[in-house]
């Protein structure tokens, strides 16, 4: 007697696709876009589409780092504070050294904070939630101290070229976002490092027993997350030419929301940057649409919160139906 053979192509590719959470979220994003275009005729104009994309850049960059962290089963609450602190560092150092070098310093600072969090979490087995909560407080406090509690506004105007250079028709910041997502997706899907990150998040003991570099790949996501927080704030500063110590406040909540809407499991191992990108777009579209309709910005929180809960609710119902 043998196990009953399992058909090689268990499901057609299309069916497999429709079963994925990313697909359902894409449908949700599409419905949202259609709905908003009825509610506001301006929504579906090229101008506004680029607006949505432009507004997605900062949160989108941070969400990539957050995806890496959440895939390993961790969480990074410090991204907003790292953004604020590294923005201040960028602003201060850009006054004495060329701005491209200042960017490198700011990114290194962000990566450094991520490295500290990652090491504390991995070597001392501390809870990611608590370590990054501490880092969040420390980062914000240092940002205030370094900046002298005021925004640094004499930023070299050359910095704005990273946002306002057009590559063909695409603005450079949107182009950067697109390239970042392609690289992150390819890394997570087609490289040993990327698959190791999934393995670590899905079953750390199995990964360790197979001889994978669990320690390295547990720390790396925090470094990436810290560095990308600094990159994100750089794009934000380049637009307004001012570094505010308060910048990036509550950014961690948006980033986590985007990743969760995108279908990642907070226990690790499940999720993708494709889903995260959809999550980011859903959130930005809601904000943008509410603005266009002239609805008070205080409603945005309710709308985004509802979307998160509805998304998880639908997912729970669908997975229960699939189990039948």
């Amino acid at each position, binding site marked *: 007697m*043998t196990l009953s*053979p399992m058909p090689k192509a268990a499901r057609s590719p299309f069916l497999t696709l429709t079963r994925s959470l990313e697909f359902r979220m894409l449908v949700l994003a599409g419905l949202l876009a259609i709905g908003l275009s009825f509610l506001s005729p301006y929504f579906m104009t090229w101008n506004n589409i680029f607006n949505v994309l432009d507004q997605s850049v900062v949160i989108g960059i941070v969400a990539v780092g957050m995806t890496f962290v959440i895939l390993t089963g961790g969480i990074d609450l410090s991204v907003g504070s790292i953004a604020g602190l590294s923005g201040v560092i960028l602003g201060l150092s850009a006054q004495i050294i060329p701005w491209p070098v200042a960017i490198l310093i700011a990114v290194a600072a962000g990566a450094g904070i991520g490295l500290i969090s990652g090491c504390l979490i991995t070597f001392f087995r501390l809870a990611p939630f608590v370590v990054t909560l501490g880092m969040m407080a420390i980062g914000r406090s240092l940002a205030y101290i370094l900046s002298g509690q005021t925004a640094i506004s004499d930023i070299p105007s050359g910095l704005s070229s990273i946002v306002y250079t057009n590559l063909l028709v695409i603005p450079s910041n949107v182009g950067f976002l697109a390239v970042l997502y392609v690289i992150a997706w390819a890394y997570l899907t087609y490289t040993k490092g990327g698959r190791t990150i999934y393995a670590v998040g*899905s079953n750390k003991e199995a990964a360790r027993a197979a001889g994978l570099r669990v320690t390295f790949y547990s720390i790396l996501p925090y470094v990436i997350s810290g560095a990308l927080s600094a990159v994100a704030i750089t794009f934000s500063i380049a637009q307004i030419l001012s570094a505010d110590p308060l910048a990036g406040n509550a950014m961690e909540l948006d980033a986590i929301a985007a990743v969760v809407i995108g279908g990642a499991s907070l226990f690790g191992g*499940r999720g993708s940057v494709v889903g995260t990108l959809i999550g980011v777009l859903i959130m930005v579209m809601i904000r943008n649409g509410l603005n266009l309709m002239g609805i008070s910005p205080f409603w945005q929180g309710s709308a985004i919160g509802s979307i998160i809960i509805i998304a998880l609710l639908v997912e729970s119902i669908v997975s229960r139906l699939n189990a039948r």
Partner: protein
Amino acid sequence: MTITEAQGRTDDILSAVGITKSFGRTRALDGASLRLGRGEIHALIGANGAGKSTLSKVISGHLVPDAGELIYQGAPLRLRSTRDALDAGIAMVMQETSLVPDLSVAENIFLPELAQPGRFSYASLYRRGADLLATLGQQDVLALDIKVRELSAAQRQLVEIAKALSVQAKLIIFDEPTASLSPSEVERLFDIMIRLRDQGSALVFVSHRLEEVFDVTDHVTVLREGRTVLASHPTANLSQGELIRAMVGHDLAAIYEHPHVAVTPVMPVALEVCGLSAPPLVHNVSFRVHEGEILGLGGLVGAGRSEAVEAIFGLRPRSAGTMTMQGRLIDPRSPAEAVRAGMGFVAEDRRTQNIVPHLSVKENLLLAHLGTHKGFGLGYRGRERQIAVLLQSLGLPADRLLDANMLNFSGGMQQKIIIARWLLLEPRVLILDEPTKGVDIGTRASIYALLRDITAKGTAVIVISSDFEELLGVADRIVVISDGISVANLPSALLDKEKLTLLAAPRTSMARNTALLRELSTETGGTGFWALLDADRLICLNLVTRDSGSGPGFAAGDAKTFGETLIPQALARRAPTLVTESSGSHTTMLCPLQSRRGHNLGWIGLTMTTATKLPSPASIQSRVAALADTL
């Protein structure tokens, strides 16, 4: 078995000498040794806590020993990690599978490669994965691109084995590989193991089940209290008694001590379940259990046994069926309601379903009490005398137990505490799902004795077990569940392992068999059946009829003496010719069903009442033979 061949080889692939390992103050290994030859299956056995797992983990690099050395292929070997062991060609197939649920089958098979330099290519993984499965003779059993999360326990184990082969392991340790497999899956695993041995690998087989040791291994090493007490002894020269003596250090009375009483005195029915359905796995389960009786629920893993009892206990929604307890209809929608009705349930997974790890033994013991206790406080005081009496009767030392953490105790001890938790509530029906899983043989015997004691007080006990031998040994009556349907309800005295295996076969695997029976009955207007025949008793496994009349006098799942059926003479003759009963009512022929490997799979019968057109016996015989070839 190629025992002589294995004996002939003198070059050891591995010898472990004087291995010592302590955890805190407990010494798990105390100078244990193990010698493994190439191309052999070596059993490593011992009671729980004897050090089998620790020794396996030392050899596979999971643990670094305090003292002792490993000689591997003639040279000393130092393992600092599993990575070192894999590089040397030593792999372990873990008891709790060490797979990554969110990666695909192929990625899991080649998981160690993720840490090695070189390109990563799915195409190469799929190609080499298919090759690997082919060397195991298991091509087409697994889709390589699906996530491991979606696989069954047996399929996951296959992935683990393929994973061990992917690193060209020359030595593979199987740590209790059969614990969660059904009998047919065990057979398949043994086929794979024998194939690997014949290809030259050395295999270590760690198991609690002695009969499996005799089935598949060439040599046996027995550990007791961290020391090797029997080293590399040829399995064929050992008896089960000798093995048990080596494991426990003294003789053990036969572990299933209850004498099977063929006719149980009729006690009142404690619980009757009728037409229970709880999709997707449970479709139609009916049985009764009497007071003072142990009822076994048998069947394959995945047949829906656990799901059925979970539905009975209110853990799963039921879509149909009625339940009666002592004449009263009950309809528990939650475990709390089931407990109030008088049920207790020891779930299968001790660690996740039964134990609250951070609570003390006392609090664990009183957990079910807490559920039924009405009042704001804990109400522990009122239970104290009862606990003292209960612990004493279970042979558990009360002073040592109550304040300690639950996890400090062995699996068998934990299981007794969980059973005691329910006994405190004095349930009328106690359900136990795989009560001896991961429990060593000494404790198993005491759990069986405990179940006997419980029933002696009038409690009805329902036991689920995948171990057919255990089921036959411990249960008075056995209900077999196959594909979510209760297919048979027989006294265990009438059954043996072979019959149970046949009864438990999934209905889907009986499709060809059913098709033949349907053809026969359609062509002749009679009844086709598949049955097992004893000296004077029949157990019907499957039956298809087109006969509007009485048929042969039995139905699928029935066990009857020949005299109770309508075709006693034909059954007594059991010949592949047409036999007409002396009353002239039925004409019957019987063909033996024998698989290619020579297993007797019972008899295919055809009974006709109104024999308008008698078929030719020879043609039926050849069709049965053709069917047997496909089994």
